[in-house]
């Protein structure tokens, strides 16, 4: 249920840490396959977090589908909440990745 939140936290830490370190030390400018190193790290962290969260969301939805109307209220609540949390995490991870491709790396 918390996989999406954990993935979001990791992505958050990686992109903020990498941007601060690379910009603070002046290591910006190197490119990986034509993409700036800061953007490349943010892209990788965002894609990885999205993949983990998408899997978690799919798993939550599967549980929700299995629970059905006859499941215990607690089970239904947990599966619904899990799907909701993972869905929101997917969205927020995406929102966190977008600025890297609109703003300059060290703006």
């Amino acid at each position, binding site marked *: 249920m918390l996989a999406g939140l954990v993935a979001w936290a990791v992505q958050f830490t990686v992109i903020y840490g990498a941007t601060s370190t690379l910009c603070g030390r002046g290591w910006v400018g190197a490119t990986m396959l034509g993409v700036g190193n800061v953007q490349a790290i943010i892209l990788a962290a965002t894609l990885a977090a999205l993949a983990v969260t998408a899997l978690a969301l799919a798993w939550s939805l599967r549980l929700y589908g299995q629970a059905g109307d006859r499941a215990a209220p607690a089970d239904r609540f947990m599966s619904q909440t899990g799907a909701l949390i993972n869905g929101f995490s997917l*969205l927020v991870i995406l*929102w966190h990745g*977008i*600025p890297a491709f*609109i*703003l*300059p790396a060290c*703006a």
Partner: protein
Amino acid sequence: MGKGRAAGQESCQCGGEAEFAFWRPVAGCFAGTKSHGQAYPFSACKTHVGQMDLEATWRDAPRRLRAATARAAAFACVLSLMGCSGVQSALDPAGGDARQIYWLTVIMTVGGTLIFLFVTGLLLYAIFAPPERRAWLGSRRTIVYGGLAFPIVILSALLPYGLIVMRDTDVPMPDALPIEVIGEQYWWRVKYPVEGGKPEFATANELVVPVGRPVTVSVTSADVIHSFWIPNFGGKIDMIPGRINRLNFTAERPGIYRGVCAEFCGDQHARMAFDMVALEPAAFEAWRAAQAKPAQDPDAPHLARGRELFRIAGCGSCHVVRGTEGNGAFGPDLTHVGSRRTIGAGQFPNNIGTLAGWIANTQHIKPGVRMPSYGSFTGEDLRALAGYLESLK
């Protein structure tokens, strides 16, 4: 609630309980006691609340809400229209950056207001509509589409839009005119550095820029933190001691605007402003050439007397007047003070009267500035000194 209160008090008298007041039944219902620890049974509580004629109060609520809303809207309209144009208004952009910020503000404000009104309408509908008509508000579909999908779509659109505005404003341009502004308590030192063979010079409390050419203003502070803000041209930028921040913008139309200090910097913070003048390129070059020249010699005896008083009184120990002995770097450069529109950092129109008043009563006009009042001049001397300063065009 006036009607409810009257009804509550009436029930108090009928019940013969002197301590009964409007709030007691409501408070008693929550606390479970009437007063002084007496038990307050739920049935009595219900009866007393019923006697308060709350239904009449509810019936009256929409009318009072409408009246209050109309008053608030009228006040907000008057207040907002007052700031829609003018020399110091973010709602009257005179540059591309300011225009982008303006539209972002308009979209956010109008959109936010419409959504607020819509949600408030739904809230009132949920409260006052009959149960069978308002049932759809609690349906799963309404919550998913209205409570989840709608905000997600709106925020997903606003996020990239806001980021694009951030990216496209305050962008450094290679051929920008460099200007340095140093904030000091409570005025602005403005420097135009050497550029393409044109000499450097300093002025104060006035920023002059050419229309159509990008400008890069490098700002810092000599004492405390100030903030440089010309609302018609974009965002504000902090002036921090020991650090240089830069603001980039382009003036799109000639005119006179006003900038202010936007960070509290001391007692006279509110009186720390400056004029910004946007000139056509040819007029700007003429102004720049004139400013770079030393001060003209006085062409009348009383002005010569004024220059002598300037020297004798020691004004030159704090102020520069290029071409004279005055070379102090503490206060504003006065070489062409007569050409400026205002004195006292945007406080008064610049003329012989205000100049004389400023010299004689500095600490009365702007208490706390570093220049002392020079109240010992005779009237004739004061006129000569102020006349000399006014002649420094």
